[in-house]
Structures are given as C-alpha cells and as structure tokens.
C-alpha cells in the first residue's frame, strides 16, 4: 500500500518547494512517486518544463505530477451534488436547491470539502498504483475534526433523513406498493461515508501516513505551527517532522541582513524546542525562487533523509 506524506503550513512558507524536492528524492531512490499540488500559484510547469494537469503526468522517471485546481474541484464537487439531487426534486423546488448550492460555492468550508473529496479519490483510487503519494497541502481544520469524530456524519445524516423516510414509507403504503425505491441521495451519502471511513483508516495509520509541518523562523508561523501540531495529533494524525524553511545563511552580505538573521534565531530555537521529540530540519533561504530542478537540490538533500512513517509495532 502507498505511503502518503502531507506538507502542511501557512501560505508562502515553502510547502510546494519542499514537497517537490522530497518527491524528487523519492523518485531518485527508486519509489514510484505521485506528487499532488493544490497550490494555484505553483510554478511546477516552469520547474519541469511541462504543465501538470488533473490526471497524472509523467515528469521524470518514477515521478508523476497531478495538479488540483481548487476552483475546478469545487465546481466539479457541486456539479456532482446537483446530478445526484436532480432526479429527486422537481421544477420550483430544484430552482431553490440549485440556487442554494451556487451560494455554497463561496462558503468557506465548501472548497475544503471539495479538495478533501479529491484527496480521498487520490488515496483510494490512484494511490494503489504508486509507492509514495506526496501532497503540498494537509487536511484542513474541519476535515481533521471530522476524522476524529466520524460518528458526527452518522448523526447528521440520519437526523436529517429520518422525516423523509417516514413520509416516503407512508406514501408507499398508501399506494400499496411494497417495492423499495432506491434513494440516490441516500446512496450517494452512504458511498461517501464508506470512502471517508477508508480514507480515515489510511490517514490515521502512522505506518502509512504522516504530516510534515513547514514553518518560517518568524513569530506567527512559529506559534501557529505548534498549534497546528497539537490539532493534528489530537485528532489521530501523525506529525513526523518540522521543516524550518528560509533560514538566513551565516554568510550574509550586509549588516541589515545580519540583523534579520539574528531576529530569526529565537524562533528557530523555539521551534526546535517545541519539536524536540520530532525530526527538525533547517533549510537555508535560497538566493532566488526555484526556477529549475537544480535549484531544488539543496532542499532535496536536506529532506531526503526523512522517512517519517512509523514501522509497524
């Protein structure tokens, strides 16, 4: 079964660069690797000289890349919901429901749900073809809580569907029709529950799945990263390491930069203290943004040692 690795952290800390660098070292080590990017601003096309798409594209020997466009995935997710609902509502009703769904497109949780749905698909359907799945994102807060309390979904769905069951069965009884009609909504929800359960098995198994938190040596990222680790671990997800990215190198050009390097020091120490029981990797700030695979070599070298999955006890 594939092992999956998720690089989490706030925007701009270097998740995509780290994930790409790590995926490259996996491929070089001989693992059949899939890199998944959800970063809409990534420059993977520049790095690989080829534009990745929503299906796996072979970029290097042993390395395929998929790009998940959040807007695209949200639209696809909502269209799927509409297709499921359509046969169940008529005319006026369907206009109200579809209008509501279009409003949902911009609700904060919808994109997270859509991306997680795509992620589940990759884990369950695409994953088995690879040895390593590397993601430049980690499951969001809502998803993480749901993974810890899957019963919530049962309570919610059963509670809302109960009344409908009663109405339907009465109607059927009145018609004298004893046949059980498949409810496509119920089917879709049961299918999703099953897939979430399977994904949860994988994600909460430290032998198969791990999170790497990427931080920059500044106040806000340092504090957030510790909080994020607590949230993930409280909900059954294993955090394997912290990557402290964009550390100003010792050989800096000016007093001005030396000052900023000094400002970083306490935050590097803080992070290394919070993560004393985990692997800490420092990565130096590079002279420019990565424009080629070679530019990622220092990152690959620093990260290549990571094997954060726990062996079976």
């Amino acid at each position, binding site marked *: 079964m594939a092992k999956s690795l998720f690089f989490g952290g706030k925007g701009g800390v270097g998740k995509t660069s780290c994930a790409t660098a790590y995926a490259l070292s996996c491929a070089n080590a001989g693992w059949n690797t899939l890199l998944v990017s959800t970063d809409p601003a990534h420059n993977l096309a520049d790095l690989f000289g080829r534009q990745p798409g929503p299906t796996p594209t072979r970029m290097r020997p042993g390395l395929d890349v998929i790009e998940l466009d959040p807007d695209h995935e949200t639209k696809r997710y*909502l269209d799927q*919901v509409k297709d*499921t*609902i359509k046969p*169940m*509502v008529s005319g006026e*009703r369907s206009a*109200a*429901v579809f*209008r*509501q*769904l279009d*409003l*949902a497109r911009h*609700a904060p*949780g*919808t994109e*997270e*749900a859509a991306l*997680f*749905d795509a992620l589940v698909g990759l884990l369950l359907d695409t994953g088995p073809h690879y040895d390593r799945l590397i993601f430049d994102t980690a499951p969001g807060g*809502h*998803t993480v*809580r*749901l993974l810890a*309390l899957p019963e*919530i*979904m049962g*309570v*919610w*769905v059963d*509670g*809302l*569907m*109960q*009344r*409908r069951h009663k109405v339907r069965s009465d109607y059927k009884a009145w018609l004298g029709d004893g046949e059980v009609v498949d409810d496509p*909504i119920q089917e*879709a*929800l049961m299918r*999703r529950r099953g897939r*979430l359960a399977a994904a949860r098995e994988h994600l909460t198994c430290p032998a198969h799945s791990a999170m790497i938190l990427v931080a920059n040596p500044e106040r806000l990222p340092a504090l957030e990263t510790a909080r994020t680790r607590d949230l993930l671990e409280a909900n059954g997800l294993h955090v394997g390491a912290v990557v402290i990215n964009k550390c100003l190198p010792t050989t800096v050009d000016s007093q001005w930069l030396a000052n900023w390097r000094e400002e970083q020091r306490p935050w590097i120490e803080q992070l290394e203290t919070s993560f004393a029981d985990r692997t800490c990797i420092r990565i130096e700030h590079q002279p420019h943004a990565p424009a080629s695979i070679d530019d990622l070599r220092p990152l690959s070298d620093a990260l290549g040692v990571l094997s954060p999955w726990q062996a079976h006890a």
Partner: protein
Amino acid sequence: MSRADDERTASAGWRTRVKRLIEGYDSVLSLQHRREIIRELQDEEDLFMLLCFCDMMGIPNPVGDMTLELYPYMLDRFHEWHQRQGMPRSPLDGFRCC
C-alpha cells in the same frame, strides 16, 4: 310502544352512552400520548435546528459541507419549521426555502 320496546330503547341509550364514554376516555389517553410525541418531535426539531445553524451559534459543524446532497431535506424541514413558528416567509436571506 310495548314495555319490551321501552326496555330495548333504554338499554340501547345506555350502551351508546358507555360507548361514547369509552371513546372519550380513549381520545383523552391518545391526546396525552400525542402530546408526548409532539414534544419529542419538537425536541427533534430543536436538535435539527441546532445542527443546521450551529455555525451561526459558534459551534463548528464539520459535516455540513460534505453532505450537500441533503439540501432538499434541509430546505423542506426549515420551511416547515418557520411556518410552524408563525413566520410566513423564510427569515433567513441566505436560505431560500420559499
């Protein structure tokens, strides 16, 4: 009318009264039962309202976005609820059940 007829009429009248008494007692019993059921349903509605709108009350609902297929049911139940509460139109701008 004969004495026998009188007696028959009298006992028929008595039977009707007893029957009405029993029916009345029955409806009292079932009214109690119905009240309990109604109370239970209202509790269910409270739970339903809580689940639907807990986001607004500051309680996170991680599941709602993954169960959008339930919208038709939510719209129906919310619509019934606001009508029961005496609101002829939907009180929420963002939730158009009617």
